[in-house]
């Protein structure tokens, strides 16, 4: 039970990073990124490539994942910088699928060695300092790594959203006209936000790859993006703490519903779909009764 809790907490931490990242993009910058999972995927694969093929250390993999996903975020925002919200959403959705399909089809990158890649996935991804711990204590060590990363991410994003940079983002989410009239280069801000959002998403990806020690392209389906969206919307967009609260609630809600099968006689496959439906119901309820989310956006008071 304790190990299960550790597993759950690690996944909550990783999704918390993803949720903070999406909140920066959508909650503050108004960028409806429907391809958040693309950063997650790219981070996971880049880190795996570095650690498995180049035999680099874990920390290098982590950095590689962050940089690759950050660059990717910056790159996709160049052609899309002037798209309106809904078109931006479609473009980002497509970008994430491109990343996933690339790793699904281009299995040559993992060579002819023991690692298959492609649809078979990659197993045996080393976990950092695994030999130092027993199988039962390792998750708790990894939990510490995840929490450390989560804290750093939280404070970095907090610094950004509290700064004048964050103020411009907040202006942008209500339309481009005013920030443009104030001399702000809106396109450049979008690129920076996507780069930072990408980098933090990549961090989450690296963390998940070394925790699962197995990844395949099916772990990064578009549905994952919507789980992160549910976290931001339920927790409260435009509030960093809200993004974390949302991550905790959705992750625990999603995980606890799998035990429903012990109480109601139900086909496991039906239940799997039903759990997603329940998240949908939760979103609708929050939208109806607390449309700003559980934690409201904080009003900024200057003194």
């Amino acid at each position, binding site marked *: 039970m304790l190990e299960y809790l550790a597993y759950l907490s690690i996944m909550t931490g990783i999704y918390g990073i993803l949720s903070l990242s999406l909140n920066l993009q959508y909650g503050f910058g108004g960028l409806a990124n429907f391809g958040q999972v693309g950063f997650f995927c790219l981070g996971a694969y880049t880190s795996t490539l570095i650690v498995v093929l180049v035999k680099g250390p874990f920390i290098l993999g982590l950095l590689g994942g962050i940089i690759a996903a950050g660059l990717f975020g910056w790159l996709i925002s160049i052609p899309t910088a002037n798209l309106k919200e809904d078109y931006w959403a479609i473009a980002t959705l497509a970008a994430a699928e491109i990343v996933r399909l690339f790793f699904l089809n281009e299995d040559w990158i993992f060579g002819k060695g023991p690692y298959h890649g492609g649809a078979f996935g990659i197993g045996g991804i080393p976990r950092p300092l695994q030999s130092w711990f027993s199988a039962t204590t390792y998750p708790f060590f990894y939990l510490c790594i995840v929490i450390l990363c989560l804290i750093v991410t939280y404070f970095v994003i907090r610094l950004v959203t509290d*700064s*004048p*940079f964050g103020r411009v983002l907040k202006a942008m989410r209500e339309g481009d*006209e005013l920030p443009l*009239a*104030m001399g702000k280069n809106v396109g450049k801000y979008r690129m920076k936000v996507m780069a930072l959002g990408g980098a933090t998403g990549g961090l989450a990806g690296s963390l998940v790859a070394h925790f699962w020690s197995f990844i395949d392209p099916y772990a990064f389906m578009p549905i994952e993006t919507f789980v992160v969206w549910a976290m931001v919307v339920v927790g409260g967009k435009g509030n960093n703490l809200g993004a974390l609260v949302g991550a905790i609630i959705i992750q625990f809600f999603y995980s606890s519903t799998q035990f429903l099968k012990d109480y109601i006689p139900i086909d496991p496959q039906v239940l799997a779909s039903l759990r997603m439906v329940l998240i949908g119901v939760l979103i609708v309820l929050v939208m109806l009764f607390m449309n700003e989310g559980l934690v409201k956006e904080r009003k900024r*008071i200057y003194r």
Partner: protein
Amino acid sequence: MIMLEVVDVHKSFGGIKALDGVSLGVERGSVTGLIGPNGSGKTTLFNVISGFYTKDAGKVYLGGERIDELAPDEVARKGVGRTFQISQAPEKMTVLENMLLAPKGQMGEGLWNALFGKRRVLNQERHNLEKALGLLNSVELIDLRNEYAANLSGGQKKLLALGRILMAEPEIILLDEPTAGVNPTLNKSLMRLIEDLRRAGKTFFLVDHNMKVISEICDKVCVLDFGKKIAEGTPREIQENEEVLEAYLSGSSKKWTQKVGIDS
């Protein structure tokens, strides 16, 4: 000396010629008015000057430098400050946040300084904050400084727009209907404020429908009708101009029906 010069600017939307060869100049340190019936091209001209629309032909100069090829944010950084006819204030930001958005060259707007230059950024913020509070005093929004812009009335949003644009310290200020929806008392203080700022050396170019405002504060008035400049002069000259009167009174609607008749 001419601060802003518009030379033979054309702009069409489909078959409608919104601006049909408009040329005019705004003197440095003056208050110049732009009037004309609805749909005569006033806001279109503002949008062309501020870079929000790209002109079809013509040139725009600011202090002798061409600005008509620039993006709107570049035009703004060159020193053209504009307000909008309909409030564009970010509603989920407070009045003070709105004000602090405006200053140019804010260090903390760079990602690097936002992360690593907190002290320097805070110093600049403190300076801007003081200035913002001073300006909010003059536009009489000081008591509402921590209120979301969404909760302001239409008139208060106009005042906020003026205050915000002053924060940016532009060379020339383009005001699109600054007095529309503002109550008479507030209107008077707004006019006094513009008068004071002009005396302090600011240049204004403004669109308004209130002839009383125009004749009281403008040094010069330009009149647009169907995308053409039909008159230019002091407010008194304009009020006595036959063509202007015709455009404003029955003339406009007569011309309109004629145009529609020809097109259909």
